[in-house]
């Protein structure tokens, strides 16, 4: 905000519509790579559906594996959207403007990917869908509302619906702009999608009200979604999962991975679409500060989790934690804690590093590796040691099918984001302009003080 260069509205239009109107070579290269990886995932999913869950590494004690880890991971990533846009919109943080849409869209796509993994997890997707859509009420067998697996889809679909509305409402003025800038079928498409937006005062007023209302409404959902995902574990009888702090712990972890993912996304967008004037080091600086707090909060929860398991003298939980803290999981644990706290937090402490986009990109990717490992360490070792006296203890190693599907999930979100950026402006043009209109400079003596003026 403070370093915002002077740009005319025409320039803004040109810069931010560029990704939609022009197609550079790198777009096609990326498209091919991502589609190849998605194709790999489709092959893996076909194998899974054809031969059953035998093709995974899942086995008798370890019934949940990479699919559920990936599910939790992507739901976690999806938290960034609301974190960035709703909270920052409500608190009128000016620096949010260029990143809100990318974050919201990432929310939608990562939620869709997460939902896909639930379906894949059951191994017979048609059965799951057959039960869920439409639900077979005729026979009088209702879903068991005691099951966290009923709460979970309810929460996720609420969140998905809210996020789609959120993205769409904020997209309308830009769609109108795109309608005016394009010709042919694209013009008709945007014309339909922008719902007759003409930019009069009443429409703007409604749009602002919608933005605020949706922000306020989606905030409780944002907290509840990952709480409920954590209850998939917390409500079980499995030692190491049956932990009271799981809900806030998962929410904080989700915010950590999600916000880090937004940083990565911003860095990629900035170089891919040449948005240096819009996504500026100051934005990375701001998010870096936020991440310090979130990472430390996450570390606190993790510490509590470990300490309670070790000191409570509950034999079963102790056994699980002992496994998590002994080789080979010890190495993963050390890697995770390094990736999540010990490496990035000291780096983020320095303003110089926070403003270095390369370093921020790397730390954000490192944090997400750490958060993926965190979910792995919660799910897999715990299932290996359920109840110390009994019975089947086992190991788990993921199969190629599972690994391919994990790669697929990343490629899938990437591909969807890439296609989105081709069809819609990834930076909210009207919000950017709005920021410019409100920007003022005050002179106090020789000092020029930038400020934001609101009505």
């Amino acid at each position, binding site marked *: 905000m403070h370093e915002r260069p002077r740009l005319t509205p025409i320039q803004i239009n040109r810069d931010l519509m560029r990704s939609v109107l022009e197609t550079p070579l790198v777009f096609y290269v990326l498209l091919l790579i991502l589609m190849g990886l998605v194709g790999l995932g489709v092959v893996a999913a076909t194998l899974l559906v054809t*031969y*059953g*869950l*035998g093709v*995974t590494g*899942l*086995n*008798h*004690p370890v*019934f*949940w594996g990479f699919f559920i880890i990936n599910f939790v991971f992507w739901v976690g990533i999806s938290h960034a959207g609301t974190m960035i846009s709703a909270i920052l919109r409500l608190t009128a943080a000016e620096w949010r403007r260029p990143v809100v849409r990318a974050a919201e869209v990432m929310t939608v796509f990562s939620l869709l990917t997460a939902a896909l993994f639930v379906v894949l*997890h*059951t*191994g*017979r997707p048609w*059965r*799951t869908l057959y*039960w869920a859509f439409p639900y077979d009420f005729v026979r009088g*067998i*209702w*879903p*068991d509302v*005691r*099951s*966290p*697996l*009923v709460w979970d889809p309810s929460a996720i679909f609420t969140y998905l619906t809210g996020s789609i509305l959120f993205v769409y409402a904020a997209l309308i003025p830009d769609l109108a702009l795109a309608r005016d800038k394009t010709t042919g079928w694209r013009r008709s498409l945007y014309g339909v999608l922008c719902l007759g937006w003409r930019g009069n005062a009443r429409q703007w007023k409604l749009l602002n009200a919608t933005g605020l209302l949706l922000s306020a409404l989606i905030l409780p959902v944002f907290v509840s979604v990952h709480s409920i995902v954590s209850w*998939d574990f917390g*409500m*079980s*009888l*499995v030692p190491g999962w049956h932990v009271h702090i799981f809900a806030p712990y998962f929410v904080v972890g989700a915010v950590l991975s999600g916000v880090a993912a937004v940083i990565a996304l911003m860095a990629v967008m900035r170089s891919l679409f040449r948005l240096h004037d819009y996504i500026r080091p100051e934005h990375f600086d701001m998010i870096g500060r936020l991440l310090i707090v979130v990472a430390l909060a996450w570390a606190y929860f993790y510490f509590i989790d470990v300490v309670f398991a070790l000191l409570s*003298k509950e*034999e079963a939980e102790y056994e699980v934690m002992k496994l998590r803290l002994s080789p080979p999981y010890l190495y993963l644990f050390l890697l995770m804690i390094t990736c999540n706290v010990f490496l990035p937090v000291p780096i983020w402490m320095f303003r110089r590093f926070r403003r270095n986009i390369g370093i921020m990109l790397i730390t954000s990717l490192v944090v997400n590796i750490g958060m993926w490992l965190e979910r792995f360490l919660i799910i897999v070792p715990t*299932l290996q040691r*359920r*109840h110390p*006296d*009994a*019975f*089947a203890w*086992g*190991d788990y190693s993921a199969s190629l099918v599972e690994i391919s599907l994990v790669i697929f999930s990343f490629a899938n979100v990437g591909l969807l984001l890439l296609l989105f950026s081709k069809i819609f402006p990834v930076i909210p043009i009207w919000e950017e302009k709005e920021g410019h209109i409100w920007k003022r400079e005050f002179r106090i003596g020789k000092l020029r003080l930038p400020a934001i003026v609101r009505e």
Partner: protein
Amino acid sequence: MRQAAEGQEQDTSKPVTSIGRRWGMVVDLDRCTGCQACVVACHAENNIALNLEDVVLQQRAMNWIRIERYWEGEYPNVKARFLPMFCQHCNNAPCEPVCPVYATYHNREGLNVQVYNRCIGTRYCANNCPYHARFFNFWERDLEEEQREYLNPNVTVRTKGIMEKCTFCVQRIRKSEWERRHADEELQDGDVAPACVQACPTDTLVFGNLEDENSRVAKLAENKRHYRVLENLGTDTNVIYLKKVDPHASETAPAHAGAAANSGRNSA
């Protein structure tokens, strides 16, 4: 049985057994020799997939009933202790409330029932079962024509993606019921014997109606050696174990095997 329940103050969670029937089993560990006849009988009766070498190596072997073996003592005074383990048909079953589609639920006879047609394969129940009594069909069964000959026609052959577990041979319960009903009689104690009970050469396993105070199983359940595995979890099982009588108990270390599930936890 009753006494045990009162001791835990779990009477409020007692299931609705409106027909005065709650199937249960008593396992007298003092009689068990670990011969595995019950395991074989169960496989034959219930069309359980064969545990071929590759399946075992994948840790996906299916045994609705299995003999857990515990070694006790230092060489040369080594003892093997056996604990037959199968679905405990908990009155307060951890597997039931986590199923989103009611594929597993409690019926009026105290049985924990698995409905194969409803199962969508979330595998949450198997995660939540502390007894590891639930088994998932990771592969589709590849049955050849002559192999179909030895299938039990009264039991479903499960497809891939389905959870399965001990049913207390519900098909045998139904058969006995029908036979008695045709003769216009009430079901008698000892009418029903699941395959494992029938096969047990040492009379370790006793099956019957725990609600009926005169049944053999209810009387045995009140034996002072009775305990339930992982009782501290509050699952309120319908399977009662009778502790092994150890004549040298005072000379050796605390009792092991399944009893450790309770005593080990408390002393820890």
